[in-house]
């Protein structure tokens, strides 16, 4: 969860924060662009799952955890993520 300063004197968590902000703006831009379709929805969902994994690994500190407790957050992202993907694919057919 907490690290020493790295590149450009910033902590890794600061880089992750900036990346999360940037990915959020990308998600919003895709929505604002008025682009429709399954590919957009699944792309946006992928970005959300990636952001969730970054929060789990770097903010919640799970990156340095080994064993059982390493996986619940990742599984939480994958299982509902898979169900939502399935529902959106079925809705688009």
């Amino acid at each position, binding site marked *: *969860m*907490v*690290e020493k300063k790295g590149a450009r004197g910033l*902590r890794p*968590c*600061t880089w992750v*924060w900036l990346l*999360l*902000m940037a990915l*959020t*703006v990308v*998600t*919003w831009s*895709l*929505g*604002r662009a008025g682009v*429709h379709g399954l590919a*957009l*929805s699944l792309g*946006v*969902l992928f*970005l*959300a*799952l990636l*952001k*969730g994994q970054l*929060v*789990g690994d*770097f*903010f*919640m*500190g*799970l*990156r*340095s*955890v*080994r*064993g059982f*407790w390493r996986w*619940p*957050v990742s599984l*939480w*992202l994958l*299982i*509902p*993520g898979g*169900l*939502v993907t*399935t*529902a*959106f694919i*079925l*809705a*688009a057919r």
Partner: protein
Amino acid sequence: MDASVNALAAPVARTGEAPHRYPPGDLAIWVFILAELLVFAVFFSAYAFARMGDPALFNQYQATLSQNAALVNTLTLITASYFVVRAVAAIREDDSRGCVRWLLAALGMGALFLVIKSAEYAHHFSLGVSMSTNRFYMFYFSLTFFHFMHVILGMVILAAVALKARRGGYSAVDHRGVETGASYWHMVDLVWLILFPLVYVMH
């Protein structure tokens, strides 16, 4: 009690990136976090499968939501989480005052989230929209208000941690309470990161 026994009884400080068997904070909060995440997973899946029945209705009413407000709220929660990470970093460096400052900044971000979300609700209510308007709004209000309540609980926990930190209740050796509060807050952020695209963007 001799010093060695005291050392065993004291919470173990987590340092660096060495592997750990357990996540930061009290294990009980993690059991609670997993239970909360499970409930939200059911909510998200229910939303997606309910949408299957009438995607046109969901798309039509999703367009009435403010993506700008949702963007600001997402950036606000991410920033609050970052501030909480910095609060944990500060107490691990034995900087109680820094820890309190970062926690207060996170609380400010949490308050901003509540103000923006309340303004969204007020706008919907002024248009006569409610949970019973249609199935989309039923999910929208249920999901976002359930999350709204979690933000309030997270702020109460962070405020309690900040008060104890202000009184010097945590140190570089004993800061499990700060990690426990931080873990809960990050869960609140994590849930919103999925809720935002699902309810506001994906169509």
